[in-house]
């Protein structure tokens, strides 16, 4: 054959390559390919899981934001109602305090008026006692029956006038 072509040797080369191809396929190609496929599948699964997680996280985020918005609205409403309640309570307190103050003032005025009456009464008694003691002193120093009777009369007149005025005042009240 030209170029030293030999069919037997071609067949020997073919046999050699078939043996090699079979061996390499079963020893190297298939196991490594299987490993690569498994790893690819694992990555695909991981990626899928990550995507699902991301989607779930996004949903949770939306829910959370919604809850936050709801909470803000609720807080605003509660604040408003609390302010209203507070204003009502404070108005009530102020009203009660004013009423109480009015009662206290009235009571105080009455007490003051009463005390004034008592003071006036006790002052009149004291004045009378002073006048009597002063008169006694005077009488003991300068005893004179005419002047005494004149003084008695004058005193009776004065005392009578003041008692009459007091009665008139009491009647007026």
């Amino acid at each position, binding site marked *: 054959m030209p*170029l*030293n*072509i*030999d069919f*037997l*040797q*071609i*067949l*020997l*080369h*073919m046999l*050699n*390559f*078939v*043996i*090699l*191809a079979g*061996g*390499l*396929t079963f*020893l*190297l*190609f*298939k*196991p*490594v*390919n299987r*490993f*690569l496929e498994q*790893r690819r599948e*694992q990555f695909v699964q991981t990626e899928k899981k990550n995507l699902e997680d991301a989607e779930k996280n996004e949903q949770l985020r939306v829910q959370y934001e919604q809850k936050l918005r709801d909470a803000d609205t609720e807080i605003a409403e509660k604040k408003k109602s609390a302010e209203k309640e507070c204003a009502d309570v404070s108005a009530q307190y102020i009203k009660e305090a004013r009423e109480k103050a009015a009662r206290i003032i009235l009571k105080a005025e009455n007490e003051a008026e009463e005390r004034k009456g008592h003071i006036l009464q006790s002052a009149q008694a004291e004045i009378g006692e002073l006048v009597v003691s002063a008169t006694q002193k005077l009488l003991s120093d300068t005893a004179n029956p005419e002047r005494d009777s004149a003084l008695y009369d004058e005193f009776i007149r004065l005392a009578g006038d003041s008692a009459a005025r007091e009665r008139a005042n009491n009647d007026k009240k």
Partner: protein
Amino acid sequence: MEHSAIVSKGKGKKNVFLVLWLALIALILVGIIIMLPPGEKHESIQTVMKDSVLHEHNKMAFFGLVVNPGIISAYMVTAILLVGAALIRIFAIPRFKTVPGKFQSVIEMLVDFFSGMARSNSHHEPHFVGAYIFSAGVYIFFSTIFELFGVQWITTAGHSMSLPAPISDINAAIAMGVMSYVVILGGGIVFGGVKGALGVLKDFSLPISMSFRLFGALLSGLLVTELVYYSISLSFALPIVVAVLFTLLHAAIQAYVLTTLVSIFYGEAVEPKPKKEKTKKAKKAKEI
């Protein structure tokens, strides 16, 4: 401190002297080797190159058969590759991790390269052709590199010679070409039926072109290397560089070219043929 500085300075001087001395000896030796008369040549350049192409003179014994040295090389490469693959299968693959180390990356890259090539060119049936082109690529690459190791073998004439790359033997190249064509034809028949087979048979020149492309490419590298070996007496500096460069280049290119061609033709052969639209005449006939 001063004492140590003086000691280190002295050591540095000694090292410089040692390097200079060795460099001088190496230079003189190189000069002597270059000036030596060239070795006696038993064969003319014509004989050497003719034998590289045709392997007519140097034959070897193989289980009682007288064969070209390429056969011995081919079986030796196969044995080495199978042992290597078995070792990887037993010791490395069970320890593969999700995050690969350096060795695992190399193996994965090698398998994934051919597997990806098969997937991209033959979408419908990438498994078989993937395994085939993986084996073919690995075989062509490592069998071409094999000649670099210069494994010595005894010829039937009793001389010792270094084993060549198997594919530099035209019989090996024809075997690869024919087998590749058979794979493509088989794919066409299995997945395309008669139409697929006819489509592949149309490219009847494919095995010849594949065989001779492989053989020619490998042979050209071999011839240049032989020429360099023959012409230069200094047969361990320049020839090594030339041989390594040519061999690595051819190994990579030829492995890539053959596997790409096979995967493309296989992809075409197994591709489902679109159904032809009915012609106007047929439509009219149906209407009538």
